Each structure stands twice: as structure tokens, then as C-alpha cells.
């Protein structure tokens, strides 16, 4: 499986506060889900959503990259059989504005990873058109 979702969102805040929101467990609980996250490479954590009839509500993850100097954070994100990677980048836009960039990718293998990096983004724009045909 090979997919990529990218999102950007602009905030009126400081880069430190944005980084804290991404890495502090209490903050994450307020805007994502309850969790036992720690910004330490190799730390295994869970996010817990409300269980439903299809899913126990558990997201299992492991911290892959914590690069505070460059404001890069990456962790795995597994729901059942599906394993994704979530990458965050915090960018200072100046004038008290900060951009949060999200990339969520899903892969089953390394070839998939390369495949997704090459061309998925452009290709994805075409998907809506294809489905509308």
C-alpha cells in the first residue's frame, strides 16, 4: 500500500508553542486524542479513540525522529493491519505565524515508499477527475 496525505495549517503562535503542541502528551490529548506519547526516539505509545463495533479505538505508534533543532517529528501510526508514518514539520513564517506541515503515508514495503515519493503527489490531484468520469 502506498499513499500520501499532505496538509498545511497556519497558526498565529510561536514556533516553541507549536512544537510543544506536537510533542507534549497533555497538549496532544487536547487536540488529538488521549495518549502516552513522549518525544523520545524508540518510545512506543498509544493514542486511544472511542472504540466502536469495527475497531478497538487503539492507534499504536513508535517515535521515529525527534529533531527539535529542525522542528521535525516523525512517528509510526498503526491501526489494525494498516501501518502508516506521520511526519510533522514546523515552519516559522515570520510575523508571529507558524505553519504546521503534515505528511501521512501508508506503505507495505520500501518499493512502495519510493513509489509514493515519486509522483504520488501530482498523481493524486487526478484522482478526483478519474472518479468523476
Amino acid at each position: 500500500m502506498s499513499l500520501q496525505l499532505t496538509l498545511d495549517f497556519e497558526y498565529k503562535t510561536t514556533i516553541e508553542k507549536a512544537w510543544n503542541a506536537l510533542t507534549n502528551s497533555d497538549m496532544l490529548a487536547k487536540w488529538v486524542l488521549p495518549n502516552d506519547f513522549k518525544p523520545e526516539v524508540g518510545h512506543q505509545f498509544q493514542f486511544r479513540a472511542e472504540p466502536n463495533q469495527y475497531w478497538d479505538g487503539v492507534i499504536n505508534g513508535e517515535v521515529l525522529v525527534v529533531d527539535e533543532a529542525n522542528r521535525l517529528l516523525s512517528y509510526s501510526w498503526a491501526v489494525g493491519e494498516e501501518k502508516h508514518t506521520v511526519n510533522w514539520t514546523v515552519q516559522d513564517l515570520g510575523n508571529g505565524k507558524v505553519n504546521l506541515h503534515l505528511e501521512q503515508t501508508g506503505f507495505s514495503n520500501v518499493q512502495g515508499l519510493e513509489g509514493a515519493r515519486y509522483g504520488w503527489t501530482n498523481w493524486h490531484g487526478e484522482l478526483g477527475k478519474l472518479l468523476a468520469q
Partner: protein
Amino acid sequence: MNENNPSRDVFDAIADPTRRRLIQLLSEADEIPLHELTVQFEMGRTAVSKHLTILKEAGLVVDRKVGRETRYRLNAGPLKEVQDWVSYYRKFWLTNMLRLQQLLEEEEE
């Protein structure tokens, strides 16, 4: 093997750039014979044909014989699953990001 019960995961099928290019080419025409598809790639007919077989197994292409040639056409239906995945997580993170905006802007006050 039919369109309603594909034997291959659609996500595997689109993991490869050649196969995504094939989907794109097929989306631009009603039906394309194998030899016309092959000239678009720096690989042989057999290799292109193998990629088409994978797309066929995922229900993404349909083929038919016309005389001595095989013609392929796109069946975009299974791509809905891909779109659903992206839509689901887009909505999930956008909702969260809006919540974060409130949190961060409250703090500013």
C-alpha cells in the same frame, strides 16, 4: 477474477510509478492496445503486460481481444477506496488542527 471481487489490493496496484502512469494514459482514452501503451515506456512489451496484469487483478483495468491485439481500458471504480482513505485522514487531521488553533489562540489572549 472479476471487477467485483478483485484478487489484488488496489493500494499495491498503485504503489508502482509505471502502473500509475498506465492508469493516467488509460484515463485519457477509451481504449488503448498494448503496443501503443508499450511505446510510452522504456521497457519491453512483456514488462508492460505484467504491470497491466497487476492492474487487472486489482480490477483497475479491463482487457479484450480484438483480432490479434489486446486492448485495455480503465475501470476507475476501485480507486474510490484510495480516495476514501485520503478523505478520512484529511478530515481527521483538519478537525484536530482546527481544535489546535483554538487552543493556541486561547493561550495568546
